[in-house]
């Protein structure tokens, strides 16, 4: 084993400097995954091991590398890495109104791969500051005010937020006319304060790209050190970005063209949905539109910690169907799984319950992510309004996560989940794939430097199946 690389990845991927092998690393919360690829995008080998964040993440990485064939155990030409270990990137999002700058900020934080642990809006008081502090955010995103609009809130909130103990950095993404003044209030020497484009610059608009890039940079500079990732970064001469951000960046590099792309990441505690495209052409000015690349995190939907939330979110009708089919009490089953997050199904019954939970979590997460008609009853009449992304023409749905990788027929599961959703603009006849080889984070990591290579990797690793439950005739191109 020789843990070294010849140069940084961009030295090879941005130009035409020849190389023969690249190493991709994802330090996940439970498992560390690695993959070695060649210049054609073919996977030469992959392996995994338990994450060892408590001691030294390099232990887990080394163990994973040891599982590779001897000829792939280094050195490599380059390496790229992502991490969601130790609770991921904890972010707080502060806006002026919950529905407008507050929502824009949260969407930006999610989009940057953050775990939004606290939100607040309005003119923050001491109680709000204490509440945010208690969640120990790594980064705080401060939004508020249209460009040229309200500046008092941004400045007031900056003053208040300066008192927070834990953050490594602040991102000011509010009213451009007040952002510098707000940033000055936050600068007390030890914190990294960045001013970026307003996430809510004009009525009916959202801008998250500048925030995303800055979050990545702050993560790299400050958070990775706190998480003990700098050893890995030095050894392999690589950056490290939040895993959800890397996954999001893969959306644009899947096989085929046209139509939105949807990822659903079913975890033990939460379920993430990422989508590319599907933004409605007609937007209301008093709402925040969905960003082109959008990530939603359902904190109450999961397979283990999140199992009770999954059951609570099911309709009574669908619960009754599952309970009578499997002769079980779903609440009891969910509690069992919550109490033992390492629970592994041992018999057909457990497997069937896991499948039902997975199908429900996937369906509910996609339903919440997708557009729907919202009715508002007012004294002056009902308003039926379509809001959210129109994901009906979705080209591909990709399932991510252990529950899907290890399930018996995950493609069918996703197909069933989507087919069972009513009244939302969810994918209609997508090709469905499972990220069996954990290639999506790798695709996203590479995409930043070489879209062509990213595309080749995705094309080689994702087997696209038409769901037998949706449109059998649709085949992947």
């Amino acid at each position, binding site marked *: 084993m020789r843990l070294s690389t010849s140069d940084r990845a961009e030295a090879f991927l941005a130009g035409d400097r020849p190389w023969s092998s690249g190493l991709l690393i994802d330090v996940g919360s439970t498992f560390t995954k690695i993959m070695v690829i060649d210049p054609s995008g073919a996977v030469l080998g992959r392996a995994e091991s338990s994450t060892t964040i408590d001691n030294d993440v390099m232990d887990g990485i080394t163990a994973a590398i040891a599982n590779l064939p001897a000829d792939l155990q280094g050195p490599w030409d380059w390496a790229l890495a992502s991490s969601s270990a130790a609770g991921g990137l904890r972010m707080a999002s502060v806006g002026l109104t919950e529905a407008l700058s507050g929502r824009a900020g949260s969407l930006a934080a999610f989009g940057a791969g953050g775990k939004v642990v606290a939100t607040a809006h309005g003119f923050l008081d001491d109680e709000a500051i204490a509440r945010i502090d208690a969640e120990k955010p790594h980064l705080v995103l401060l939004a508020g005010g249209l460009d040229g*609009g309200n500046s008092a809130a941004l400045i007031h909130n900056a003053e208040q937020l300066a008192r927070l103990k834990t953050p490594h950095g602040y991102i000011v993404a509010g009213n451009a006319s007040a952002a510098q003044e707000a940033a000055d209030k936050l600068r007390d020497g030890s914190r990294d304060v960045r001013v970026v484009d307003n996430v809510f610059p004009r*009525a009916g608009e959202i801008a998250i790209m500048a925030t995303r890039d800055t979050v990545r940079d702050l993560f790299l500079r400050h958070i990775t050190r706190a998480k003990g990732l700098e050893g890995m970064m030095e050894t392999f001469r690589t950056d490290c970005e939040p895993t959800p951000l890397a996954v999001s960046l893969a959306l644009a590099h899947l096989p085929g063209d046209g139509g939105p792309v949807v990822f659903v990441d079913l975890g033990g505690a939460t379920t993430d949905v990422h989508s590319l495209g599907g933004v409605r052409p007609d937007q209301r*000015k*008093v709402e925040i539109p969905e960003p082109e690349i959008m990530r939603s995190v359902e904190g109450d939907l999961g397979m283990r910690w999140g199992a009770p939330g999954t059951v609570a979110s099911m309709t009574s009708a669908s619960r009754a169907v599952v309970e009578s089919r499997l002769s079980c009490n779903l609440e009891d089953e969910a509690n069992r799984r919550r109490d033992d997050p390492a629970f592994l199904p041992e018999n057909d019954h457990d497997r069937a319950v896991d499948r039902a939970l997975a199908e429900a979590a996937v369906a509910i997460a996609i339903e919440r992510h997708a557009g729907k008609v919202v009715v508002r009853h*007012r004294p*002056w009449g009902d308003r039926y309004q379509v809001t959210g992304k129109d994901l009906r023409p979705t080209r591909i749905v990709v399932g991510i996560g252990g529950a899907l990788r290890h399930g018996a027929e995950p493609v069918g599961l996703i197909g069933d989940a989507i087919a069972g959703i009513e*009244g939302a603009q969810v994918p209609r006849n997508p090709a469905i794939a499972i990220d069996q080889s954990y290639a999506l984070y790798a695709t996203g990591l590479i995409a930043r430097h070489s879209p062509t290579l990213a595309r080749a990797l995705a094309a080689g690793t994702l087997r696209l199946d038409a769901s037998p439950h949706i449109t059998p005739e649709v085949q992947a191109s």
Partner: protein
Amino acid sequence: MSNLASYLPQDCPDGRALLAQGREIARDVTMGVSLLCEQHGVTSEVQYKKKMVEEGRLMTSLNIGMQTWAETARALEYIAEESAKRGFRVDRYQMQMDRRMGLPPEMWEKAAKETGPMLMSKQDWWETAHCAPIQPQLGDMMIGSPMSVSNARNALEAGVTYIGNMSQFAWKYPGWPGDDVEQMAEMVKAMGLMAAKRDEDAMMQSYLEDGFCATFKDYCSYIGWAMFERYLINEVMGSRLSIAYGGLTHNPVSKTAVILALEKIKPAGTFNSFYHCNTTAYSAQVDENYAVLSIDDLYLMLAQHRTKSGAATLSIPVTEALRIPTTEEIVQVQTVAHRVARDAPRLMESFNWDHIDAISDRMIEGGTRFYENIMQGLEELGVDMGDPMQLLLTIRRMGAQAIENQWGVGELPTSDAEIYEPEIPTDTFLDFVERRNRVKTIFGANGKKPKDAIQLVVGSTDIHEYAMFLIIEGLQQVGIQPIVAGTSVDPDEFADLALEAGASAILISTHNGMALTYAQQLQKECADRGLELKIAMGGTLNQDVEGLNAPIDVKEQLKEIGVVVCTDVTDILNLLQAH
């Protein structure tokens, strides 16, 4: 397959089953024959129209609705006699009834009374078709209302065969405890009854301007919508549609073009009901109104003659802008119409039909695309295109504006801060353009840009958008780029946006009939956010009050609670100067 159209409730009733129920009811219904039809030896108005068209007769119609049915019947008798004395006869009338006719009788007492008669007994219904030899059309508050089934049944049994009104399907009936699902279910049942009587010439009538067309900005949308209504009535529900149109168009040329288009897209063997003279160009100058009337009559008679439409010309008394017309005034305009009808045929050849034909062909071309867009759009929503409940509920809940903004053939807006740009603008839209130019001139001449940067939020409480665009235009003339909230904005949404914008005022156009409630709610939302700013409101500043038959004016109450009341868009100038 999933993806039931998201506009529908999970338990949407089966429209096909409701149609079948209506057909069942039809077994016990025997259609009557009106006095007019008896006199002409026919059994239905369709047969009558056919006969008259063959004879080359140009027909007329009138609107009527006195306080009671008894008064209305006496007026009809008088009109028949007086016309005969003057040497002509009126072919049909359409009755303007009290809205309570759409409610079950047990609710009549409690519900607000409106102008227009009520038909209270079988005898009243019977008399509608037998008090005078003038054929009734019952349009208002009939099919589409909560009382769709029994009203349709009573009308058919009396000998009324043109029954409305498809376009009123989205109307609301204050006091009716049911929801839109129940109301549409009643309508679909009644349509089953109408379908069962199709071969006896029961016709489902639709006056376009009573519905979505009043909101559409494009004549292409009018024509496409007429095609869609025909699909719904003829193909889906198995009845037959007859169109009426005209009140909101005041340019006789565009009106004639629309009529030609409507006649060209009509299937053979049926007859549209009537074409309405304009209701928007009359002023308090009664003598001038005679000119408006004569020109309108002439174009409508020429169109009737050319298309052999059998659709009667409906003239409006010249005093309508001043008061509820008297019976005598109705006879007066009928006299004008019949005199014009006598001269019309000899003017035919001197008329530039190519010009109008070309416009109507463009309307049909655009209308066909609009129709196809609607059909495709609904299908993409997952609507069962053969289920009338799903179709009616979806389009009702979407609303006219969303339908034209998404599927229209003009330039589509990308947000509610932009206006739909029609391919062939309606007269209402052209009026807006003219007002917009006037506002530009006034603001350009009088406006001074305030010294300090001033942030203003502008929006509408409902789907009405013209006034909002006039305000935007005016403000831009004085160098202010307002923050546009858009249409159908709720108080919490206004307050949120105003807070983010650091606005010093919110300028609101409202036509929702709840101006006071809305203003109070907005003030509360602003207070909740610690917002201190001016609220200015313009539009229709009234409020529906339970038990009263008309909304009351609330300008004074609005002033009392501190709202700046604007009666004209130029009042905004004062507001700016005060700043």
